[in-house]
Every structure is written in structure tokens, then in C-alpha cells.
């Protein structure tokens, strides 16, 4: 008796495990979605979805389609989406995704092809915006498991987002042209009540976001074209040294515990001279209510490094449609409407960050959004994206842990380069990449 019930349990458990393995349910039937349809949107909480929230009632008024926006904070949204996709759950009809998540969702086949739902490229939107939503990636190294898969458009950018650079233009007339200038200015401005440079150094994602533009501008990288790890070559090491030694010497008191919220608070209180920044941080956190530096901050693309280039980093927020959604067509119709030029302008007037070049360069918007023209140029440059691998979260965690340890004085530059590279190689080989 006992044996049989145990056997039953094991069978039950196996059945559950099996469901999980082969969870490829058929893509949702695409209901057209007229009045009465409700689209549930998973969105990131914060300024990035402010414009979306403003547009939602307008769309409902126009079409009768109701939009239910469900917010999660940045650090949690990814986990929530992975879980929802794994559950093949029809909860969400549209999801906001940060661009480094695309490889995971693309590899897992979690999203519907937007091209098949009638969304077409538009030349007024920078090519890189389309590329970043395309899977497998149209350029750069492609994960071994993804080679030969048909190209699909899985995400459309709704928050044009490229990492930029901010500095106190009231204190120095000239914008820094290179990282040499950045360091020189930092040394000159560094005082007891003013940090020469604000490092966003909290472990994992934050410190990596602050560091990658420096790494690239110094000519370093994490992977080469064949997924070989190059984080321990000389260019990469000089970039690491620049962050954890040179900039740290002129940074705020505690870079290792500083996240974007802390950085913006320091900037808004007038206690920092310069830092990298995302467009999403600017209007609310740096220049918003309570800030003492409104009108005193200049925004420029990432300065040039020893490589001769300044390489910005993309952090576009995209909208995608989960495979499990039963309102695929209605969701695609909403995306199309959102991309229209007039909608994009309304969007920008309501704290949205548009991606259309003509809207970004619209003179009537530049006053309230001093960084729009810089963003338009940054998108055309084009900026780099984070390596297109579903292992990126793990790679980022490794890099971020060691960089953070170095900022806290626990590891040397060589330690960071050697340890992180070794761990990343092990990880990538384990995941079937040809990394050396």
C-alpha cells in the first residue's frame, strides 16, 4: 500500500516536471479586440511608464479597449515575467521589457512575432531600435542555440533610452570631451561637500550599467565576436582601473552602496559634479520637485575614451506580446497606435520618452526635455547593446559582484579581471558557448 502511494506520488511529480519541460502551448488566438476588450500590461514602476499611464485613458476613449497597467519595480519585473512566461499564463497581453532581457525571452520563445501582427519598420525611428527588438540579433555574436532561427521582431521600443552623461554646466563652461577631461574636472571640482564623480556602484546590475560605457570607450569588452571572454585584456583592465582607482579617488563617500536613486539624490542636492545617467532619471529624480540644480545640469553623449570613441549603452524599454496572450491582435493595434507620430508627441508631453527622431528633435519639446536632441543623436550613433545571450543576467551578476568588491576595497584590478573572466568562462562553457 505504502509502496503504491509513493509510486503514485512519483508519477505525479514526473507529470508535473514534464508539463514544465514541454510547455510550448499554441500561440494565443488573436482576437481583434474592439470595445470591451481589456489588455493587461506588465509595466516597470517609475518614470519609464509615466507616459504609458498617461496614454492609456486616451486610447480607451478612442477605441473602447481598456488598458490595465500592472506595475512592478525594476528588480522584480524580470522575475515576474520569467515566471509568467514559464507558467504560460495568459495574465499579460503586453509586457514592458528592458532590452537585455530580449535574449532570454527570444531564446525561450516567449513572445509573439510582431511582424506577423502587422507592425512594420518606420525610417523615422533609428535602425538600432528595430535591431534591438529583433531576435536572433541581426549583428554581433549570436548564441550557438539561436543560429539559423528565423528572424522575428519581438519587441518595439516605447522608451528610447541610451545612457548619457551629465555634468554641472554652471561650474565648468565646457563639456568634457573625453574621459581624460572627466577625470581632470573631477579632480578640480572634488571638495568636501562636492563629489568630483558620482559612481553608481551597488552590486550587480547598477555598477555594470555605470561601467560598460567606460569599458567600451576604453576599447575593452566582455566578449569578442566569437564569445571569447576578453574582460582580462589590457584595454579592459585599464577601464577597470579607471573606475575603481582613478574615479573612486574623487567619488562620493560610499560608491559601493550607491544605486541610481542615491546618485540622483546626491546630484539633486548639489553634492555631485558629474555622472552617467539614463534619460529616465532626469526629469523626476535629478531635476524634479525639491531639486536644487534645475537649469544647472548639462547632458551630453558618453565622452570619448582612449579608443577614440565614446560608446553609449542602450537600455531601451520595449513592448512585447507574450505567446500566451489571447488578445495578440488587439495588443499589436495598441503598439501601432503608440508609434504614430502624433501619439508620440502627446506621449512626450506627458513625460514619455519617445523614439521617433522627428519628435526627439521637435523644438517645442526641447525646453522641458533638455536631453532630447542628445538622445536622438545617441540613437543614431548607434549605441552598443549588452551582449545578446540569455546568460547575460548571470554574466552581469558576476561582473557586478567583483566590481562592487573592488569599489569596497576587497579586490584589486587584476583580481576583478581574472576572477570575473574565469567565472564567466566557466558559466558560458557550461551553457554550450565556445568561450575561451
Amino acid at each position, binding site marked *: 500500500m505504502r509502496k503504491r502511494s509513493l509510486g503514485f*506520488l*512519483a508519477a*505525479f*511529480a*514526473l507529470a*508535473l*516536471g*514534464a508539463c*514544465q*519541460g*514541454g510547455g510550448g502551448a499554441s500561440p494565443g488566438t488573436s482576437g481583434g479586440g474592439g470595445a470591451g476588450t481589456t489588455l493587461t500590461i506588465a509595466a516597470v514602476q517609475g518614470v519609464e511608464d509615466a507616459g504609458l499611464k498617461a496614454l492609456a485613458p486616451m486610447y480607451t476613449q478612442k477605441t473602447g479597449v481598456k488598458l490595465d497597467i500592472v506595475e512592478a519595480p525594476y528588480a522584480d519585473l524580470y*522575475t515576474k515575467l*520569467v515566471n509568467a512566461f514559464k507558467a504560460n499564463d495568459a495574465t499579460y497581453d503586453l509586457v514592458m521589457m528592458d532590452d537585455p532581457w530580449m535574449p*532570454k525571452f527570444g531564446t525561450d520563445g516567449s513572445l509573439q512575432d510582431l511582424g506577423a501582427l502587422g507592425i512594420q519598420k518606420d525610417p523615422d525611428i533609428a535602425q538600432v531600435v528595430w535591431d534591438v527588438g529583433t531576435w536572433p540579433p541581426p549583428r554581433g555574436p549570436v548564441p550557438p542555440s539561436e543560429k539559423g532561427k528565423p528572424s522575428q521582431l519581438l519587441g518595439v521600443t516605447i522608451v528610447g533610452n541610451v545612457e548619457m552623461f551629465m555634468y554641472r554646466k554652471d561650474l565648468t563652461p565646457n563639456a568634457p570631451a573625453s574621459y581624460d577631461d572627466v577625470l581632470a574636472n573631477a579632480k578640480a571640482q572634488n571638495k*568636501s561637500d562636492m563629489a568630483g564623480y558620482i559612481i553608481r556602484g*551597488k*552590486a*550587480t546590475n547598477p555598477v555594470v550599467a555605470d561601467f560598460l560605457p567606460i569599458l567600451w570607450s576604453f576599447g575593452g569588452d566582455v566578449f569578442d565576436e566569437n564569445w571569447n571572454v576578453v574582460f582580462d585584456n589590457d584595454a579592459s583592465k585599464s577601464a577597470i582601473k579607471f573606475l575603481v582607482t582613478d574615479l573612486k579617488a574623487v567619488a*562620493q*563617500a*560610499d560608491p*559601493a*552602496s550607491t544605486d541610481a536613486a*542615491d546618485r540622483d*539624490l*546626491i546630484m539633486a542636492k548639489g*553634492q555631485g559634479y558629474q555622472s552617467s545617467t539614463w534619460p529616465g532619471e532626469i526629469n523626476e529624480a535629478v531635476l524634479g520637485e525639491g531639486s536644487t540644480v534645475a537649469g544647472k545640469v548639462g547632458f551630453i553623449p558618453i565622452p570619448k575614451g582612449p579608443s577614440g570613441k565614446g560608446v553609449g549603452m542602450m537600455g531601451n524599454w520595449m513592448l512585447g506580446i507574450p505567446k500566451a496572450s489571447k488578445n495578440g491582435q488587439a495588443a499589436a493595434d495598441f503598439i501601432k497606435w503608440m508609434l504614430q507620430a502624433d501619439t508620440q508627441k502627446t506621449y512626450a508631453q506627458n513625460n514619455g520618452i519617445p523614439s521617433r527622431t522627428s519628435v526627439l528633435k521637435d523644438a517645442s519639446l526641447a525646453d522641458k526635455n533638455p536631453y532630447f536632441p542628445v538622445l536622438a543623436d545617441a540613437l543614431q550613433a548607434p549605441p552598443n547593446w549588452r551582449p545578446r545571450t*540569455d546568460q547575460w*543576467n*548571470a554574466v552581469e*551578476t558576476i561582473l557586478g*559582484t*567583483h566590481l*562592487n*568588491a573592488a*569599489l*569596497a*576595497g*576587497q*579586490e584589486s584590478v587584476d583580481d576583478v579581471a581574472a576572477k570575473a573572466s574565469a567565472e564567466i568562462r566557466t*558559466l558560458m562553457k*557550461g551553457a554550450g558557448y565556445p568561450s575561451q
Partner: protein
Amino acid sequence: MTSPIAVPELTATTVAPRGRIHWSDRSRQERLGYRLLLPTLGTVVVVATIPFLLAVVQALTSASGAFVGLDNFTNALGNAALYESVRQTAIYAAVVLPTEILLGLGLALLVHRTVRSPAIRAAIYVAAMIPIFIPQIAVGVVFRLVFAPDYGILNVLLGDTGRNQILWLSSPPLAMLSVATVDVWQWTPFVYLVLFAGLQTVPSESVEAAQVDGASPWRQFVHIELPYIRPLLLLALFFRIADVLRVFDHVYVLTGGGPGTTTQFLSLYLYRVGFRFSDLSQASALAVVVMVAMTIFYTLISRFLPVETR
């Protein structure tokens, strides 16, 4: 019962002799007992065991569902970061547990012996209840407002928010101390409440007898109160060990495991593997290892539990 030492031998009620009920009646009752107990207990045990079985299944398969034998276990156990996190958890436990138990016991004795006013006792009770039921996330955030550089109230009160201020959350030994402080803050009141409730039940005759005999307060504690509350002390320690081994929330908010991996405790490491690395196979293998290790650990220490097993 004149000897106070005999009192603590109450490992709860034993099955009292039932003179008035006939033997056959007794065996009928015993059967009734099992009939009532087994369906519920069986269901609960099964429901609580399924996750373990599922974890085992997942630990033996790859992400694509293929059977891979013990590979995931080899990977999980071959990772030095695992042992590092076990070590950090042990250090954390070594700091937190004695502090909480001694502080909680000391405060309970102090209040029990010196505070007579019901109003003050009630006020202390309320103050002690609050930390236990605050959402962990709010605890993390409040202490960020305490420990953070520049705007944290601790450094403001210490009068140093300058360039060389104390970095409570990101200089290695201090970060450990800071997250431990939060644990002590939150859970000493629990220990206090449990032990205070226990001290209240010490029979006053025993205490008075000892006082008449001229026993010092210390002897009174060692010979009368301590033996009496020992089972409760052990149980409180058990609950605290269980909670310390799974500490997660406030550390996640305060340091995220940093600086480096200084405060990356076992649960944070599991989170990292399962949710940051999205390596569910290895995470399941780790989960199985942790569950088995905890079961062994629990079996080893459970003989100290105040449960009648003789």
C-alpha cells in the same frame, strides 16, 4: 513538590493514567485517535513533501527536461561560492543567536524582577511586538534610512557625513555587523516576549522559599528560574536558528549580498542561482542539498527539543 528542581521535569503532559476507563475502551480510543489523526496528518505530510519530490525531479534533469543524473549536484557542490555562503551564514548565526538569546533573557529577567507597574509592562509588550510584525521589506528600508551614507540618520547623529564617514553598509566587517544589528533589533523582542511569558509561570512559592533561604538573585536564577524555563529557552533558540538559517529579506534590501559577497548568505546565494542565473536545475539541486542538510541538522539537534520522546 518541595524541591524546585523537580518542577522543570514537565516535558508537557504525559498521557495521564486513566483509572476509570476500561482497557478495551482504551484501545478503542486509541484506534479513534489514529482514525482522526491519519487522514489530516497524511494529507499535510504529502502536501508538504511534494515540493521536495519535485525539487528532486528538477535536480536530476536539465533545463530542457533531459535526465542528467547527478550533474546538477556536481555543479552545485563544486561551486566554491556555496561554501563561502555557508561560512557567511555561520558567522551571521554566531553573531546573532547568542546576542539575541542573552539580551532577550537579560531583559526578560530585568523586567520580570524590577518592573511591577502593569502599565509599564504593557507598554514594553507593545513596543516588543512591533518589530516582529513589520513587513521585512519595510524593515530593510527603515534601516537604509538609518545606515545609509550622507542621508542616513546614524551618521548624522554621529556628526559625520563627510568624506571619511563610517560606511555601515559597504565596508566588509561593518556590513555584516549592520545586517546582524537589524536581526538583533527585530528578533530580540521575540526572545524577550517568549522568556518573559515563561518567567511569569514560575511558581511564586518556589521563588519565595528560595528568598527565605537567602538565595542571591543569581542563585535564584540558576537554581529555580533557569531550570524552569529551560524547555522554553531551547524552543526559542530553535525558532531563531530556523529563522537565521533562512535570513533573506532585510539583507537583500540593505546590501544585496555585498560588498562583494560579504553578506551573501545561503538564501541569497540560492536566490542568485535560481533567479539571477535562472539556472533552475542547479538551484533545485542546491535546494535538495539544503533540505537534506537541514533535515540531518534538525535530527541532530532535535533531541534537545522539549518534546517527550522517551
